C-alpha cells in the first residue's frame, strides 16, 4: 500500500509543508497585529510618536508620490489616446484617465512606492533595535515596545496612506489633463467636465478603503519583520527585504480581492 502511495507523498509532501509554513506565518503576523491593537487601547499613549510617524510616512513621501502620480497620469492619457484614435474613440481619454487613476493606479502605485520607502525603513530601524538589544532595553525600562514603537507606525500608516492617495489621484488626473490639453489638443473645459461626470463618490470611497488596507499592510509588514529580526547585520538585511516583498504581495493581493468583490 505504502509503496503505491510513495510517489504521491514525494510529490505532495513539499506542497503540504509549504502550505503549513504559510499558514504558520499568517498566524504569527495575525497574533502580532492583534497584540499591537490590544496593547494600544490601554495607556500610556504616544501622540507625539504618532505625529512623528505621520510626518515620516505621509509628508516626507509626498514628493515621491506626486512624481509617481503625475508621470502615470500623463502616460495613461497618451496611451488611451493612441489606442482610441484607431477606432475614433479619443473622447474616452478623460474618462479612462480618471477611472484608471482613481480606481487602480493611484492606490496601487502609491501603495507600492510608499511600501518601498516606509516598510523597508521600519524593518531596518526596528531590526537594528532588535539586534542591538534596544527592544529588550525598552521592556526593562517599563516601556512596552508594542505601544511605543509599533502602534504609532500602524495607526499613522492607516491615516496617512488614504490621505496621500487622495492627493495622488488629484495630481494623476492633472498629469493626464496636462498631456491631453497641451499635447493632444483637447479643450480644457470639456476635458474637466468629462472628468467630473465620470468621477463618482463610490470610486473615491473605494480608493480610500483600498489604501487603508495598503497602509495597514505596509506598516504591519515593516514592523513585523523588523521586530522579529535576528542574526546581526545580515538578519536586518533579510528582514528589510522580506518586509518590502511581503508588503508588495499583500498590496497587490488585497487590491485584486477588493476589486473583484466591489466591481464583480
Amino acid at each position: 500500500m505504502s509503496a503505491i502511495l510513495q510517489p504521491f507523498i514525494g510529490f505532495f509532501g513539499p506542497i503540504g509543508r509549504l502550505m503549513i509554513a504559510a499558514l504558520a506565518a499568517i498566524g504569527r503576523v495575525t497574533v502580532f497585529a492583534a497584540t499591537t491593537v490590544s496593547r494600544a487601547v490601554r495607556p500610556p499613549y504616544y501622540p507625539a510618536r504618532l505625529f512623528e510617524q505621520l510626518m515620516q510616512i505621509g509628508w516626507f513621501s509626498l514628493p515621491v508620490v506626486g512624481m509617481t502620480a503625475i508621470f502615470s497620469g500623463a502616460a495613461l492619457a497618451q496611451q488611451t489616446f493612441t489606442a482610441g484614435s484607431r477606432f475614433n474613440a479619443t473622447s474616452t481619454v478623460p474618462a479612462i484617465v480618471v477611472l484608471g487613476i482613481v480606481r487602480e493606479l493611484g492606490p496601487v502605485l502609491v501603495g507600492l512606492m510608499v511600501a518601498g520607502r516606509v516598510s523597508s525603513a521600519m524593518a531596518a530601524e526596528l531590526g537594528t533595535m532588535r539586534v542591538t538589544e534596544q527592544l529588550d532595553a525598552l521592556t526593562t525600562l517599563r516601556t512596552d515596545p508594542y505601544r511605543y514603537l509599533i502602534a504609532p507606525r500602524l495607526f499613522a500608516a492607516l491615516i496617512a496612506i488614504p490621505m496621500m492617495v487622495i492627493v495622488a489621484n488629484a495630481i494623476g488626473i492633472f498629469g493626464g489633463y496636462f498631456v491631453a490639453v497641451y499635447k493632444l489638443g483637447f479643450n480644457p473645459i470639456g476635458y474637466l467636465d468629462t472628468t467630473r461626470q465620470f468621477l463618482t463618490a463610490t470610486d473615491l470611497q473605494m480608493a480610500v478603503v483600498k489604501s487603508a488596507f495598503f497602509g495597514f499592510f505596509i506598516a504591519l509588514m515593516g514592523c513585523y519583520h523588523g521586530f522579529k529580526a535576528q542574526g546581526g547585520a545580515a538578519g536586518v538585511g533579510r528582514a528589510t527585504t522580506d518586509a518590502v516583498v511581503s508588503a508588495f504581495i499583500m498590496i497587490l493581493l488585497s487590491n485584486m480581492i477588493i476589486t473583484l468583490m466591489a466591481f464583480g
Partner: protein
Amino acid sequence: MADNPKIVLEGVRKSFGTNAVLDGVNLEIERGESMVIIGQSGSGKSVTLKCILGLIRPDHGAIRVDGEDLASMSTRQLEVARAKFGMLFQGSALFDSLPIWRNVTFALTQGRLRDATNMRKIATENLERVGLDAKVLDLRPSELSGGMQKRVALARAIAPRPEIIFFDEPTTGLDPIRADVINDLIVELVDELGVTALTITHDMASARKIAHRVAMLYEGKIVWRGARDRLYDSGNPYVDQFVQGRAEGPIQ
C-alpha cells in the same frame, strides 16, 4: 543564610528546539548581595538573565522575586513586577535617536517628553553618580566612547532606583582601566544603594572584584557556587579549569 532570599530560581528549564539551554537551574540570591554567574559563552548565562527579566518565558520551573513567581505571571503583572529591575546591557543598548538626558530618564517618562527641566536635573544627578557631568546631556549616544556609553547605560539603569540590577558582561569591550572603573561603580552601587546585583561575565578580574558569591553555569546547570574567596580553591574541576583558563580539563 537568610530565610527570604531576594531571587530564587527553582528547576528552571528552557529549550530552543531540541537544544536544552537551561537544564534545571537552581539558585538563590540574597537581599543586597552581589552574585556573579561565570561560565563559557553559550553556557546559558544570558538566557538565565532574560528568563528572570521576563524577556524569555522558561519552559519549566519557578522564578521567585520577593516570593512572587514571575514565570506564572500574566504579561500585565510582569510589567508591574519589572519595576524592581534595572539592566545594563552588554552593548549598552542606548536609544540612538534620543539625546543622553532622555535616555537616562527613559524609565521615568516611559519615553514621553514631559517635565523637561526636572528630568534634566534627574539625568544630571544620575550621570554624576557614574562619573559623568552635565556636558553630555544633549549629546547623542553615538558621540560618546564605548566606556562613556556604558556609564550612561548604567545611569539609565539606576535612575528609577531599582531594587535589583542585572549586569550582562559589564566589562566586555572595554580596556582594563575603563573596565575597572565600571567594576568600582558596581561595587559602589551595591554598597551605597543597597541594591541586589546579578552579573554574568567571563572576566575573572571583574568577578573577583564585584562578587560576594560566585556560581558557575555549565551545560545549563549550576555546577558550583561559593564565596568569592573560595573561587581559586574550590576543589571543583570545572571551576579550576575555567578560572585558570586552561584548554584541557573536563570542559571541552
